[in-house]
């Protein structure tokens, strides 16, 4: 057995060269690729971690903003509810005021209408009463009534002032004595005498008949009327009743 030392040395050199070559074309490139991937993965993990932290912060911000929005929403809703309540109260108060106004107006109108109706009814009742009274009094137009009206006329003339009586007597115009029914000449003469005596002179007297008087005795001239009849009395009463209504 012999060992070829040249061959031994050459094989050692060959293996050394192979170690050197493979380290450059195989081991280091492949290990480098692994290392690059690991670094890239680490970088990606770090980036993902940073992104996660950032996303967490953003999520917290969003949550905070959402809480703020919710609080603002609640405040706005409360404010809107308060405004709506106030508006409703105002509308209700306005509607109530309008209703009260309308009610008062309606009440006023009702009162007015009622008063007008009452006045109208009263007027009609008064007119009817006067008519009834006129018819009833018309049936009582007798000598006693005529005498009573003559006494009232004379009393009214006596109640006039002396100047008024003298003016009436001195007037050129005729004084018309009006009765409700026609009288006899004697009755006319008696009445003319009594009136002339009451006036204190000799006035120019004429006689006339007016059934509208119902009953009574009146003096009429161009500028003077002395009413003394149931017609005038009833008209006065009717006027008073209308004024009272």
């Amino acid at each position, binding site marked *: *057995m*012999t*060992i*070829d030392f*040249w*061959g*031994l*040395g*050459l*094989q*050692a050199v*060959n*293996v*050394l*060269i*192979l*170690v050197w*070559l*493979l*380290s450059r*074309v*195989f*081991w*280091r*490139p*492949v*290990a*480098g*690729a*692994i*290392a*690059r*991937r*690991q670094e*890239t993965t680490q970088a990606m993990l770090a980036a993902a971690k940073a992104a996660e932290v950032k996303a967490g912060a953003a999520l917290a911000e969003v949550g905070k903003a959402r809480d703020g929005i919710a609080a603002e929403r609640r405040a706005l809703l409360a404010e809107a509810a308060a405004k709506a309540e106030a508006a409703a109260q105002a509308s209700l108060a306005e509607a109530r005021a309008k209703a009260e106004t309308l009610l008062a107006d309606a009440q006023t109108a009702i009162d007015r209408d009622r008063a007008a109706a009452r006045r109208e009814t009263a007027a009609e009742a008064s007119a009817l009463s006067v008519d009834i009274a006129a018819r009833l009094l018309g049936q009582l137009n007798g000598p006693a009534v005529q005498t009573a009206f003559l006494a009232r006329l004379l009393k009214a003339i006596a109640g006039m002032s002396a100047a008024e009586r003298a003016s009436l007597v001195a007037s050129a115009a005729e004084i018309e004595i009006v009765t409700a029914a026609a009288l006899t000449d004697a009755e006319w003469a008696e009445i003319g005498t009594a009136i002339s005596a009451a006036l204190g002179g000799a006035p120019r007297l004429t006689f006339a008949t007016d059934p509208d008087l119902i009953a009574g005795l009146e003096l009429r001239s161009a500028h003077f009327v002395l009413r003394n009849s149931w017609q005038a009395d009833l008209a006065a009463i009717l006027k008073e009743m209308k004024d009272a209504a």
Partner: protein
Amino acid sequence: MNSPLESVALFYIGPVPITQAILTTWAIMAVLVLGAKLLTRRLALIADKRQAALELLVAMLDTQIRETTGAAPAPYRDFIGTLFLFILVANWSSLVPGVDPPTAKLETDAALALLVFLSVIWFGVRGAGLRGYLKSFAAPNVVMIPLNMLESVTRVFSMFVRLFGNVMSGVFVIGIVASLAGLLVPIPLIALDLLTGLVQAYIFAVLAMVFITSAVEDGQPRRAEAGPVPSPKQKDP
């Protein structure tokens, strides 16, 4: 059949005899380098199947180194990995008809053992310093110095003999059986020889790693004994 203990020079380059083992080694070197160059042409961040297989091989080697030495694998990867690949391909080169594996020759195995012996010194000095490396011979005490020095030689010699014996015997047995029983009979033996070649490559690489680690660890100061072995200069990628 030529004696496996002798090498026949095919031609000479100057005084250097070129044997078939050397030619086969050159061919294996060319195949490994060109193959590695081709396979690592386009290494991307996202690996395809080819790149994944290459990275799996490197990762397995790194894991083996890390588990054996407890240190970062980068400083040892080139040497240990190349030893493993070369011995494996050399052992399996017997599959090529007419080719004897270079590891079936004394010179190749002796050269590999010599490289391991020198690498132990190199990594020991590099990792623990010259003083630390020399101190590693005094572990566990100075009485062991002669034995440790003798061991440093005999252990690589045993590696050399183990590899040579296994590979040479396989080739020799297959040759004898083939000459006696024709073509098909040696096939189981060839398969067994493939397994033997793989195991021997693995054993040689692991033993080289263990020897290197032992030299580095024994040269470290006492306080470092409990901790992992520091890597000698290069950082682990």
